[in-house]
């Protein structure tokens, strides 16, 4: 049972991070960050390079060791509830020359449901193929993963997460180094997941698309700067605080007031 002292928001949240601190070499890279992911939301974690966005995710998922803080999934400790989470890592985190086909990688999302005496089944293969179809990659099932383009590799990772049918999907920069068409395809899939009532949490780099893609944001730079619905938290003041004055007034005005005006602002370039 969830601890009765916990708040309602924490018990309802698929990922509630409280006081999370991570340090490398005695220097905190994430310092006491709180974020309660609203269920059914599409949330973005935003901040400049080196702000600890990916580290926050990895620590929240138990990949990186945390110095302090609590992570709860529906009010229970993360370790007991990993089943509710699916993770889409950065593409560059694996060796794409690995001897595996697309279908093998997607199948890895099902490994924990397989006992050692099982040699896979038609049903599992069907589930994997369905996930691939959802990201438009069903024609590539038998391809060696090294032969895929960057955008295709990203979609394979997304399919591996889809196959788990998790309540919360966590993505680490899913749009890094993919072409515009792939980005549109991925966001389409993510939005359809949200429409099914699932929650999404993304590390995101492109400030210009935040308003189009997400409904909640966490602005951070080692520490939490602001969090909440995009309209409330994604403000000029908060952005200025997050990026430490690295955004020009023109950029800021464009981002905050007329978000659909077009030109992309890559964070941290200025």
């Amino acid at each position, binding site marked *: 049972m969830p601890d009765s002292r916990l708040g309602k928001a924490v018990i309802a949240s698929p990922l509630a991070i409280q006081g999370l601190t991570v340090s490398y070499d005695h220097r905190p890279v994430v310092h006491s960050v709180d974020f309660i992911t609203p269920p059914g939301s599409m949330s973005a974690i935003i901040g400049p390079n080196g702000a600890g966005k990916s580290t926050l995710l990895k620590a929240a998922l138990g990949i990186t060791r945390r110095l302090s803080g609590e992570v709860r999934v529906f009010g229970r400790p993360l370790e007991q509830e990993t089943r509710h989470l699916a993770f889409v890592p950065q593409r560059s985190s694996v060796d794409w020359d690995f001897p*595996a086909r697309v279908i093998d990688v997607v199948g*890895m999302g099902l*490994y924990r449901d397989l006992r050692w005496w099982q040699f896979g089944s038609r049903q599992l293969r069907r589930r994997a193929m369905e996930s691939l179809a959802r990201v438009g990659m069903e024609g590539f099932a038998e391809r060696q993963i090294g032969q895929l383009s960057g955008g295709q590799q990203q979609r394979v990772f997304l399919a591996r997460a889809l196959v788990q049918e998790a309540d919360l999907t966590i993505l680490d920069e899913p749009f890094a180094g*993919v072409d515009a068409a792939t980005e549109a395809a991925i966001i389409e899939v993510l939005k359809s997941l949200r429409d099914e009532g699932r929650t999404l949490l993304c590390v995101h780099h492109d400030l210009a698309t935040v308003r189009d893609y997400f409904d909640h944001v966490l602005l951070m730079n080692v520490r939490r700067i602001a969090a909440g619905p995009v309209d409330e938290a994604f403000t000029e003041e908060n952005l200025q605080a997050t990026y430490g004055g690295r955004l020009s007034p023109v950029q800021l005005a464009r981002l905050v007031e007329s978000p659909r005006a077009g030109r992309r602002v890559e964070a941290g370039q200025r």
Partner: protein
Amino acid sequence: MMETWWRALTFTLGYNTSLVTVGAMLLAAAAGMVGSFVLLRKRALVSDAISHSTLPGLALAFLVMGVWQGDGRVLPALLAGAAASAALGLWLVQRIGERTRLGEDAAIGAVLSTFFAFGVVLITVIQTLSVRGQSGLTGYLVGATAGMLYSEALLIAACAVGLLLALLVWRRDLLLLCFDADFARTQGFDTGRLDLLLLLLLMAVVVIGLKVTGLILVVALTIIPPVAARFWTDQPMRMVALAALLGALSGYLGVSLSSVREGLPTGPLIVLAAFTLFLVSFLFSPRRGVLASLLAYRRLRQRVHLRQGLLALGRDEPIFDGLTLKLLQRRGHVRRDGVATPAGLAAARDAEHEERLWALYRRRYPDDALHREHAGLTPIGQVLSADAIMALEAELPPAETAR
């Protein structure tokens, strides 16, 4: 001589030899499987550290058994000693890697040479003492199956079967660890423990293999068969299975060869057999082999020349390149005097059309086009679906008037 080998190959050289052969095959199969995972985890050199750090433990165990029992050659005790010092060496490698800024490779180098040096000193000391069975000790350096006892062969075979079973049980966990350890963690797999498990399995293989291939060469059994297997398949489990098969085959060939004449070293023969299998894979594998890529290169060159030739024909430019002319002539696109035939002109128009379709495709889908193999040279109909081509055709700007 050939006859003896034949009898060894057909398991008719006596019960003992057959058991030794089967034991070596099982061991090599297990080594190939463990080695595949270790290789995919990018820690192939760890097996070298393990094998070299077995020596001091082996020598110490020999010494203790020699003093206590009068004869040092007690396989279970020797293996236990080897395992203990290998574990110590592994632990040191891990600690150095964690606690200092040295990489794992540096830690391996330091640990394996120190342990090996200590082991060699111990062996020299043993040689000055009058303990029985000293000659048996060198067998652990290069491997000796000839004088192997029935009980020893049985022990090796039983351990190898146990290892194979363990690998079967944990195959998916280990594979996930090798491909994407971070992802494995989010799935609730304890990657720290899995890494330890992999190391323990590797250590077990190395220790059991000491008597068969010797400690210097046992590392080859964990590296060569997996690397050879990688040439034949892109599927992870198939690679592991194939590595086991190639390992077993090397063991079979090596042990049977070494029984042909007294004094032939088993370890080197097994390794040479494994290398032969690697060489065959390296040269003739249809996927990644040298021969296949050479042929693919030639095909590509012909395609490029042909395409360039046809485009030149279409633009009515002179062709000087010998290979291009030869290819065009062979296909009947030009006459011997270099003038285009009607068929050649038609082919030239087709080539131009293809070229424009591909150009449009590259403009529209730059990311996809980048990763299509030889985008632009393969007929577009073989790569894109009919629908996709129709869509491109519709967008194609009207052709410039042909000259």
